[in-house]
């Protein structure tokens, strides 16, 4: 963000809007903002939609949102970085989310993380160098009755073990 802010703001904005006009996703996002009447208090809703459309929130996207909602970029950036749910970096092709709530932790979720970290050289919150796998943790997905729970690409799986987790990831990574 720091380097990019150095560019003259107006020029950058024009380039961004030119770019946006060719991308359908920006249009969808704008329709969504219109649905909220471009209200500034809908910022979080808009960022949710933006992340859903683009996968992550890059600087230009945040700037686009700030222009359309007439909010200072600092405010948009501040909100985007405050909440854990918003990703500012591209994510891997597959996402493995290990729930680290108390129930899952007591039942050995940390061992699942350790096993994946060791095998695939990726720490919690990071993406592998080849962009294939993101290993993420969740605070608690509320599936404590079936702990430990792991979410593979959006599908919650009950009673996971290091073995089942590694097997699922292996299945993803073998072409």
């Amino acid at each position, binding site marked *: 963000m720091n380097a990019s802010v150095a560019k003259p703001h107006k020029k950058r904005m024009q380039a961004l809007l030119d770019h946006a006009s060719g991308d359908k996703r920006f249009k969808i996002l704008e329709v969504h903002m219109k649905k909220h009447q471009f*209200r*500034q*208090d*809908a*910022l*979080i*809703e808009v*960022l*949710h939609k933006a992340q859903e459309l683009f996968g992550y929130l890059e600087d230009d996207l945040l700037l686009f949102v700030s222009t359309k909602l007439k909010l200072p970029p600092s*405010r948009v950036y*501040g*909100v985007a970085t*405050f*909440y*854990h*749910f*918003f990703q500012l970096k591209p994510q891997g092709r597959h996402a493995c989310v290990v729930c*680290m*709530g*108390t*129930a899952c*932790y*007591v*039942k050995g979720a940390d061992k699942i993380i350790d096993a994946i970290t060791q095998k695939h050289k990726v720490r919690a919150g990071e993406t592998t160098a080849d962009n294939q796998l993101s290993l993420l943790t*969740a*605070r*608690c*997905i*509320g*599936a*404590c*009755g*079936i*702990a430990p*729970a792991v979410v593979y690409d959006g*599908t*919650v*799986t*009950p009673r996971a073990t290091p073995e089942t987790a590694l097997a699922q990831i292996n299945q993803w990574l073998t072409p």
Partner: protein
Amino acid sequence: MILNDLIQIKEKEMAARKPIVLRCCMAAGCMSSDSKGVKEQLEKAVADAGLQNEVEVRGVGCMKLCCEGPLVAADPQDALYVRVTAANAPSIIAALEGGRAEVAQTDPNAPFFAKQFSIVLANSGVVDPERIESYIAADGYLALHEVLNEMTPKEVVEAMVKCGLRGRGGAGFPTGLKWGTVAKSPGAKKYVICNADEGDPGAFMDRSVLESDPHSVLEGMAIAAYAVGADQGFIYVRAEYPLAIARLQIAIKQAKQMSLLGAGIFESPFSFNVDLRIGAGAFVCGEETALMSSVEGKRGTPRPRPPFPAESGLFGCPTLLNNVETFANVPTIYRKGADWFAAIGTEKSKGTKVFALAGKIKNTGLLEVPMGTPMRKIVEEMGGGAPDGGAIKAVQTGGPSGGCIPAQHLDTPVDYESLGKLGSIMGSGGMIVMDDSTNMVEIARFFMEFCMDESCGKCIPCRAGTVQMHHLLDKIANRQATARDLKKLEELCDLVRNTSLCGLGQTAPNPTLSTLRFFRNEYEALLQPDLYGSHGNGEAKPPTATT
């Protein structure tokens, strides 16, 4: 919509009921074990057997025994099938005509179910959460009708004071008092907010209520709005609960279509709209001022109180903020009367409480018991004790803001005061059971890491204090600490607790303090001898050479 329409919907729904009902759990826990596939196969098997006129397959909310999911219950056979797979469907249908299915069953009259007392969860596992007719058939929205037609807002508040309901979010503030304060606050515009940002790890009651019975929350909010004079409501839900969000969206849409939300509800001048606000993963947003800041689209940081939200809350207007479970209690209270509710529970804690039982315990899932039930009854009799014959070491309540109740105190009745005396809190209702293989220092470190990550960074005691406390706990767990570090940790706990801005910081030391109180020996066993000795005041003695 008038009362007659409501009764007609109920009668139509009852007339359409088939003699046999197969209830299939469609809450998030069972869905993750393919209960959707089970339901589809059951429907197919019913069609194959030509029983469409006799058997209804109904998707319902949580049936409480989450560890054995997917669950399917057959009425009136009184059979409860556990760990059902899609392939089991024909066998279950065949058993309806007599005989026994080749599917594992559990006793629906076992203590886990029989000792429960349901108010909030009464509809959970019975009504179809995606159909408003199903809720109306269970006497839904009758309370709202009665309140709007036969009571003044003042009477509604008085009844709430009389019933003695206390906030189920954790702190236990009297709900009637809160409603009264908001009702008295001057202002043309007021808001009602439902706090569904269930951030405590290990708690899933609110998720289950929203997934299983969303209309009870909407009805409760509407009654509250009438009492305080609000016309706009928000439900702030965590993004981690996609199913709950989807069910709420359906529920709001259906209620609007039937004019049970919107303008002129039950042909009265009262109007009420509800909008959803999706959280974005910040634990601190469970704190009321932080939550409101997040609803306004800002960073979720708390602010000092007063002014309290009841006077100046969302967008500067008087705001009523209650938890999901609190609102879910409301319709039943007005339907059955404040006196009925006040007779349940203990003198100071009325009604029931829903607990999410998880961790090292045989029966994990949801249970609702009257306030004052001894913890031993909950974990040993109903929960079935530790699995594989292990011994229960402690029960953690209140998540990162609570503490651990050791095994010797299991006879404590569960109510706000008794848990407070033991250095824990009621919290939102998460109950994590730990057996003798659990290391208490690790648990304290786990919760401190949580608080450190989730500290919003606004006030210094919490922002810096949690980091330092985590560092000290880390040092102890890694066997690098001395008695002096332990003393420093205790001092820091005291400081952070007394000087932090909001509940997060004020309660962050609780897990550490309560494990120190009951399991100090585990900490001390990890300490290293102090090479430099101590003056007794915690200061290091300089290694002066005494040649």
